[in-house]
């Protein structure tokens, strides 16, 4: 039987350069805070309209049962990586998830400066006890089993699982699923990848299960595995920015009813589930989500569907 792995890919693809990125993040945060203080001084020079609007927003937001009253606390991974969060700096609002978080916050009536970012590892999400975040945003995918333990908003992004390999590796030039039989796959623990591989390919070699996509990348580069399976945006990112001679082999057809829908994760029975879902639905309806996905993710570029 297939091991049913359904946690979304928490693919911390950039951990390889943590040191460098921490520096970048620190610098960009510094730059960002400068920028925001600049804009505040501009605004303060302007009329009272803005303040009035802000006051109204604040009163809306105050009514919501957030962890810190008046603040919208959003958790993400450590580090968060492209294309979900650019430069590991969610406060910049750059990257799909950062942008979606600010759009949702706006829908809920939170001013931009009232959005607080924190970092959480996966375990704090499932461990019992009070949570220090309102929503958690790191490519969590919706599944029936998980709904027993946590709440999800409606999805802000739908992806498929895809394969990235290196030139010359077994299966790197596969055209069909049958060509992938002898490939040694690697996935991050808790990702959908293993379930999809088992179901579609049923490979002859046992799937390697790594702590993160970073470890899988290290194994790929060391020649311990032939290919990595993870969500398509991450595959594109790995191919473009991380791997030398990286090849996008292709993507799988979506698995019926199984979590390739990324959504905001909320604590079980959170009072915010309904408002956040409504906000995401509104953003989907007015085309904002599509526009953001278009902007931050090169939609399916050069990744043929494998049959």
């Amino acid at each position: 039987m297939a091991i049913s792995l359904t946690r979304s890919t928490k693919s911390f693809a950039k951990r390889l350069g943590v040191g460098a990125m921490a520096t970048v993040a620190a610098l960009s945060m510094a730059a960002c805070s400068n920028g925001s203080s600049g804009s505040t001084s501009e605004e303060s020079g302007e009329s009272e309209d803005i303040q009035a609007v802000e006051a109204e927003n604040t009163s809306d937001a105050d009514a919501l049962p957030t962890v810190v009253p008046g603040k919208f606390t959003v958790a993400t991974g450590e580090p968060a990586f492209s294309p979900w969060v650019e430069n590991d700096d969610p406060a910049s609002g750059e990257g799909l998830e950062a942008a979606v978080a600010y759009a949702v916050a706006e829908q809920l009536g939170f001013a931009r400066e009232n959005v607080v970012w924190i970092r959480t590892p996966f375990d704090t999400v499932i461990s019992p006890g009070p949570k220090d975040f309102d929503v958690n945003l790191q490519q969590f995918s919706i599944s029936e089993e998980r709904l027993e333990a946590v709440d999800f908003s409606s999805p802000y992004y739908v992806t498929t699982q895809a394969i990235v390999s290196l030139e010359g590796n077994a299966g790197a030039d596969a055209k069909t699923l049958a060509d992938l039989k002898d490939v040694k796959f690697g996935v991050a623990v808790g990702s959908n990848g293993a379930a999809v591989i088992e179901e579609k390919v049923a490979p002859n070699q046992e799937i390697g299960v790594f702590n993160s996509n970073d470890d899988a990348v290290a194994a790929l580069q060391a020649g311990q595995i032939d290919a990595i399976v993870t969500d398509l945006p991450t595959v594109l990112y790995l191919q473009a920015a991380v791997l030398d001679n990286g090849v996008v082999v292709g993507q799988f057809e979506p698995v019926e009813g199984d979590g390739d829908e990324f959504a905001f994760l909320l604590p079980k029975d959170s009072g915010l589930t309904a408002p956040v879902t409504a906000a995401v639905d509104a953003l989907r309806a007015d085309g904002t989500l599509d526009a953001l996905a278009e902007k931050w993710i090169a939609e399916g570029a050069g990744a043929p569907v494998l049959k």
Partner: protein
Amino acid sequence: MVSEDRAVRPTPSQVELDRRTFRKKQDTRSILISIVSTLIFAAVLGFLVVGSPGWAVVQEKFFNFEIGAEFFPRILKGLWLNVRVLFFAVIGVAIFGSLLAVARTLKGSVFTPIRLLAAAYTDIFRGLPVILVLYLVGYGIPGLQILPRMPEAFWGTIALILCYSAYVSEVLRAGIEAIHPSQRMAARSLGLTYYQTLRMVVFPQAIRKVTPALMNDFVSMQKDVGLISVLGAVDAIRAAQIAAATTYNSTPYVVAGILFILFSWPFIRLTDWYTARTQKREQVGGLV
């Protein structure tokens, strides 16, 4: 000896009898107090845990029988990989650790480079965290492409051997150096060569002296085989992690923990038993 003495002993005085009664009373009292205090402690602890507002959730998240039962076979299958890795790692550590220990105890200035090398090796590998060695070996050495692709567990075993040989060689060295020089002198004067002395006189005694410490290292290694999962191998811990990620429930970790305890428990008891026996034999007359 007590029974022999008793026959010739005079009847104790009334004062002594009173003392005995008093002592017995005190004993009973202290036993009662310890029982009561243990019960109260357990009750308070139980009340704090079970009565806590989050207990129902914790119980559901960590002690969910259904989930535990569902994933038990997979975790057990993972444990089998741990057992196999341990088997080969122990053999490797026994060989490599002994060689290192001998290398460090070699006498003679000719062997200085070997001694230094062995000393540097044990310094480095006792200092390096096991998980770091796993990463370096598991992702580094295969990249050299000297060998064809080996299973993750193979590199995990190599890394464990590298780390634990350093610990074990230090223990063995301590044992070797604890053998009194007169033993060596006697052996050499009987005509045994250096190597024969080491093999037949020094090593057996050294191992006997340090067996408890060696068994302690063994138990420690038994747990550390769980770290090979970082290389992608699906062992007991990784199987539990997969199950936890699937269900958003931590019961599989508890299951894996229990399996690991059951797996190491016989050796832990054996170690304690052996230590106690050695102590008894070597410290006849008892402790003061």
